[in-house]
């Protein structure tokens, strides 16, 4: 409950009049602002971002996250540090009070999330990241919603990347196991043919074998020239494949460096990587 009087349902759970399933948090009625040219700098950067949810307190305090083309950047940090929030901020899902987001030479701070999708960003949220009632194939089609061209090629690629999805393409995605769901989620994001792929804890709830598999796939995706920005709890593995790592603590950058550097840093290891 955020104190917004319009969101006060007084604990009503009456399913005969309200349908709570699938309600979102992003305001879809907003009109998008314009992107302004801002040449130079990294391929994608959320720079000195400060802001929080609604009228609540700030959660991010001057947080900066960047990723270069075709590289993998990983954000780690304790629970509640604001990792997911930072991702959402980069994606325009919350209002920044200060800071900018720039993508490929443009300042996109004013853009709505929808507009950012059109600009080539894709996002896989931490939870609720598939359409459970749609079939796997429809999930992928939804990923390609903005594309007018023939996306069958891309779908083929996704099926090659995640062969299990091909077998299950007519099955409602809600019936899949956690790991398979995660694959659908990533596949859906890839269908947009993004320039940047943002993943929030893609390996959460995924068995270790699938996790390794996912990491391999992520590296493969990066090799095709797509930049990857992800949050990971399995920090160790993630940092091993990361070109760049960020440690967030309480909404601010605590450490930054290449994955190897962070892994080697004793302080980081002790405080955040469990040893």
């Amino acid at each position, binding site marked *: 409950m955020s104190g*917004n009087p*319009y*969101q*006060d*349902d*007084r604990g*009503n759970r*009456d*399913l*005969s*009049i*309200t*349908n*709570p*399933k*699938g*309600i*979102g*948090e*992003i*305001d*879809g*009625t*907003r009109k998008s602002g314009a992107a302004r040219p801002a040449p130079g700098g990294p391929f994608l950067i959320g720079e000195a971002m400060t802001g929080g949810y609604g009228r609540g307190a700030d959660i991010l305090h001057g947080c900066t996250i960047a990723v270069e083309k075709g590289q993998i950047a990983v954000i780690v940090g304790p629970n509640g540090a604001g990792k997911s929030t930072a991702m959402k901020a980069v*994606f325009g899902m919350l209002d920044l009070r200060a800071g900018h987001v720039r993508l490929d030479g443009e300042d996109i701070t004013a853009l709505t*999330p*929808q507009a950012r*999708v*059109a600009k080539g960003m*894709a*996002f896989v*949220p931490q939870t*609720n*990241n*598939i*359409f*459970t*009632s*749609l079939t796997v194939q*429809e999930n992928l*089609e*939804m*990923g390609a*919603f*903005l594309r007018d061209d023939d996306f069958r090629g891309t779908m083929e690629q996704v099926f090659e990347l995640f062969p299990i999805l091909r077998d299950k393409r007519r099955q*409602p995605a809600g019936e899949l196991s956690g790991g398979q769901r995660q694959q659908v989620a990533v596949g*859906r994001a890839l269908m*947009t043919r993004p320039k940047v792929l943002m993943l929030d804890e893609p390996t959460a709830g995924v068995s270790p074998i699938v996790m390794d598999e996912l990491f391999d796939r992520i590296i493969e995706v990066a090799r095709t020239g797509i930049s990857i920005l992800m949050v990971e709890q399995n920090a160790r593995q993630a940092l091993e494949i990361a070109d760049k790592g960020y440690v967030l603590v309480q909404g601010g950058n605590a450490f930054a460096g290449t994955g190897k550097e962070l892994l080697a840093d004793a302080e980081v290891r002790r405080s955040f990587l469990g040893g």
Partner: protein
Amino acid sequence: MDLLNAIVALSNFVLIPAIAYGSQLALGALGVTLIYGILRFSNFAHGDTMAFGTMSAILFTWWLQSLGVSLGPLPTALLAIPAGIAGAAALVLLTDRGVYRFYRAQKAKPVILVIVSMGVMFIYNGVVRLIVGPGDQNFADGERFLISARTFRDLTGLEEGLAIRTTQALTVVTAVIVVALLFWFLNRTRTGKSMRAYSDNEDLALLSGINPERVVLVTWLIVAALATVAGVLYGLDKTFKPFTYFQLLLPIFASAIVGGLGNPIGAIAGGFIVAFSEVGITYAWKKVLNHALPESLAPDGLVQLLSTDYKFAVSFVILVIVLLFRPTGLFRGKSV
């Protein structure tokens, strides 16, 4: 021969009326269920939306009739349906702009929207009466019957008659077409799929580049169309009166919920269940049994399970039973 009479009597008084009434309810319930599935609240203003759409169609029908336009044996009002839909669409879109959109931006909880829809219901209620008045409006023309009971009797020589009204046939045909179109639209077209996606997960739909406002707009348009079609068919079959349309809300809600809110198939099934239970459970079987059974066994009494006083109770009792044993309605599983 007697068995034939029994079948004809049953068809004439139970099957055909219930199918037609069921189709009308189903069309209404589809509108309610779509809003529930996609906009996530039960729209108390739906009955009055139907009234407004029908009223628009009626006004246009009158104008057409005054021009001497006619469809021959079919009611002229069919020509006016697009105008009615346009009227209803204008109304709901205006309402969405002025009322609902604000709450969407606020990410208001659905129950708030339910209350808002109560306010809208009051307003629609007043607006329709202000424009067309509270009275009965008869706008049906053309042939009333495909086959009337008398004709049927003369034709077949049976004792019992069988009547099929043009409007009944139209209702069923239209309902089938509309439902087929809707299913095709939801399951096959890009926009339709995007609506299902939005219904499933708003945020993810937005992250896939689906414009939520467009989904909402299309939903309202479909709802306006469904409401108007349902309202006009109903009005042609029976009669138009604003108060009656408000009262329709109850069986429509019952239908949508019995079937499983948010599920189009459920809405249709629910419509028929309510219609059949209203007509069937209070049916007096005397006539049918008289035909079907030998003279000696023919019943004295009416053989009526429940008097018609309680026909509305029937649909709610069924509703409660369904909810007790299948809390999500008959068809959950797949929603919109």
